[in-house]
Each structure stands twice: as C-alpha cells, then as structure tokens.
C-alpha cells in the first residue's frame, strides 16, 4: 500500500480564509486589483495572475497526478475554470484561496476520471481530509529532476537573500513574509514610501539575477522553464 504524502498537520499550501472579512493587504490587494481589472474586461491582467500562481498551482496538482505533463494540463484547466468563474468572484476571500479550491477539486476529478472511477458527479471537497479514500491514493509526484530543481531554486534564493544588505533584506522580508504594504514598511523602517519601493525592487533584482543563472544553464531545462 502506498504511503500517503498528505501531511497530517496543517497544509502549508492551503491558504487560510480566516481574514475573509479583513480588507485586503499586501499580496491580496495586488491580486484583487488584478481581479478587478479582469472583471472589467482586461484579459491581459489574468495572464499576470496565471504567471503569478502557475508554479504553485502546478505543484498543488502534482500532489494528485504524478506526471508533470498531466499536471500542467490539469493546471491549465484550473486556470480556465477560474477565468470562467471570475465574474462571480466577489473578493470575500483571497484570490489564491479561491483558486486553491478550484485546483483541488479539478485535480481530484481528473484523478478520479483517470482511475476509471465513476465521476458523473462534481466533487466538491474543501480539503484532502474530506476525501480520505482518494487521499490515500496520492503519490509522491517529485521526480529526482524536479526535486533537484526545486532544491537548486531554494538554495539560490536563500543564498541571495543572505547576501543582501540589511536594509534591502528587511524590506523584502517584511513584504514577502509579513505581507506588509509599502506604507506599513515605510513606517516600520522609518523611511519614505519611495525608498521602500526602491529597496524592494533592488532586493528582487539581486535575487532574480542569481535565479536566472539557475534557469539559464543549471539544469538543462532552463530555456523552457520559468
């Protein structure tokens, strides 16, 4: 019997919906701004949401489907479903929380269809715990190449962050880990908002410079991967 790879504790990838009624801040505010533009008819804004969440959604789907190609196909379906449903998205929860639910249900339905189980109904579970029989069939999707790539990316990003000057590191950490707005960071770091914007940009650039090296020749798949 295959061992389940579903974490027994809280799912780190599952976004929490606890702050459903709180005004969106940080990344949520950025997402909501893009969502509103999509809802207003600007389809290009949805491309940015896809680019932003493609890595996470593909990784999430890979928990259910071993094959990377299959996972990308299902992830594509996830984004298309989400786009069609976006007019009904009211912003009560974060965009990724909503997208995560679509991804989980789509992946489960795809897995169900592939295993030739009856799938004439729409599965609507909110998490793996609500579908234990399917959760038990989940496999570790990580291939050695995938694991190596992920490790390389992590090491590169973490190394680049460690090498950042203190002010840049603080700014990017407050933004990415704490989810603070520029204004909040400005108050926290006692500097103008423009300086915060500049620091965060320079921090990202420094990390991205190292990351591009990984993609540009590190693992042989770089040209076709982002």
């Amino acid at each position, binding site marked *: 019997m295959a061992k389940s790879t579903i974490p027994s504790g809280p799912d*780190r*990838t599952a976004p929490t919906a606890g702050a459903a009624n709180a005004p969106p801040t*940080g*990344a949520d505010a*950025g*997402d*909501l*701004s*893009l969502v509103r*533009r999509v809802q207003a008819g*600007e*389809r*290009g*804004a*949805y*491309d940015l949401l*896809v*680019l*932003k*969440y*493609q*890595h*996470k959604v*593909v*990784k999430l789907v*890979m928990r259910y489907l071993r094959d*990377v190609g299959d996972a*990308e196909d299902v992830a*594509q379906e996830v*984004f*298309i479903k989400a786009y*069609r449903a976006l007019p009904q998205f009211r912003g009560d929860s974060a965009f990724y929380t909503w997208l995560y639910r679509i991804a989980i249900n789509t992946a489960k339905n795809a897995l169900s269809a592939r295993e030739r189980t009856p799938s004439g109904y729409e599965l609507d579970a909110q998490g793996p715990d609500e579908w234990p029989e399917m959760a038990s069939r989940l496999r570790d999707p990580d291939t050695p190449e*995938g694991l190596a790539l*992920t490790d390389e*990316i*992590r090491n590169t*990003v*973490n190394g680049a*962050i460690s090498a950042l000057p203190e002010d840049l590191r603080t700014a*990017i*950490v407050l*933004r*990415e*880990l704490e989810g603070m*707005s*520029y204004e909040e960071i400005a108050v926290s770091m006692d500097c103008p908002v423009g300086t915060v*914007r500049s620091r*965060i*940009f320079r921090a*990202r*650039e420094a*990390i*991205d410079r190292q*990351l591009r090296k990984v*993609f540009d020749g590190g693992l042989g*798949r770089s*040209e*076709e*991967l*982002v």
Partner: protein
Amino acid sequence: MSHEQLESQLSAMYDGELPAAECELLSRRLAREELLRARWSRYAMIGAVMRSEPVAAVSGDFARRVSSVIAADAGRFSLRRVAAQWWKPASGAALVAGVAGIAILVLRSGLPVQAPALAAVQPTVAAPATVAPPLATLRPDSGYALAAAPSREPASYVVPPRSLGADVDVPASLASFVVAHSEYSPPLVRRHLLSAWIGNDLVQTSPPSSSVLFNDAGAVPPANGTN
C-alpha cells in the same frame, strides 16, 4: 523611461502598489514583452520560496497556452451571449404567439365541434339558399304560401352558416381561459381574441334577422331553427 525604471514599476505593480494609470501602461508592455512576463513570474517564485511554499517549474509557454485557450473561449462565449440575447425575447414572443394561436383555435373549433350535436336536434334546414320572393310580391293565392299553409312550416328560408351554432353557449371554462389569458397577453392579441369572442356572442344573442326571410306565417322562426 529607462529599463530600470520599468523594472521598478514592475516590482511595484507586482505588490499592488503602482498607481492605476501606470498599471495600465505597464500592462500593455507586459502583454508584448516576454522578458518582463518572465521576470514577473520569477518574482512570484521568489516570494513563494521565501515563504517555503511548494513550487514547481513549469513550461515557459504555460501561461501563453492558457491565454490562447481563454481567447478562443472568449470568442465562443460572446457568440453564445449574443445568441442568448437574441433568443430570449424571440422565444418569449413565440410562446405568447403560440398561446394566442392555441386560444384562437380552441375558440373557433369549439363551434363546429358542437354543430353535429345541434344538428341532431335540428333535423332540417333548407340548405340551398333559395331566394325567396320579396314579401311585397307575394299574393295569398301564390303557391308559395299555399303550399306551406297546411303544415304551417316555411317552404324555404336562408340560413347563413354562422347561425348554425348561434345558440351554442361558450363553456364557462373557455370563458375563464380567455379572461385569464387576457391578463397576460399583449393588447393586440387580447383585443383580437376578445373581439372574436364578443363577435360570436353578438351573433349568438342577436336575432338572426337576415337568416330567415320569412315563413308562411310571416313571423320570424325561432332562433334554434326548429320549425
């Protein structure tokens, strides 16, 4: 604008901190500059890795594939919407017209249906429309009057077809139907239906003055045609 300024804007836009007007301009550049899009995607990966979120490397054309499917889908979707907008009023009108048509058929078919039953009670009606001589030209000794005298029955009279069902009562259920229908039907249909019904009613209730020219007694025969 220098490339660095552009990238600085991209970073701010990624965080949702760029003014809307600048966002719009940058979005246009993002739509056509693959390098900027790739950078945007890597910014997302950097954030995910910093938060220790699981990420996977995906094909470089993944977002493009999604975008092209959505673009194709959007075309179909808008066509469906146009079709739906066209069909909605058309189907509504068709439904109303159908109901009105059925109502008219029911109203009209009601009369001939009852005619055979009436014919059983009304055995003989002089079918050929015999042209009777004008009253003024009749003389007491005319064969016309004399021939009819023994049985006191009219020798001949003209009955137009409409008077066949002249005394048929419209069923109460049918009347209720027309009244109910008039509440929902458009005025034109309602007027047509009601006028048809009322017209029938007038024929039924008014004395068929033109239907019988005379009988042997010079009196108008009963409306039910029994003679």
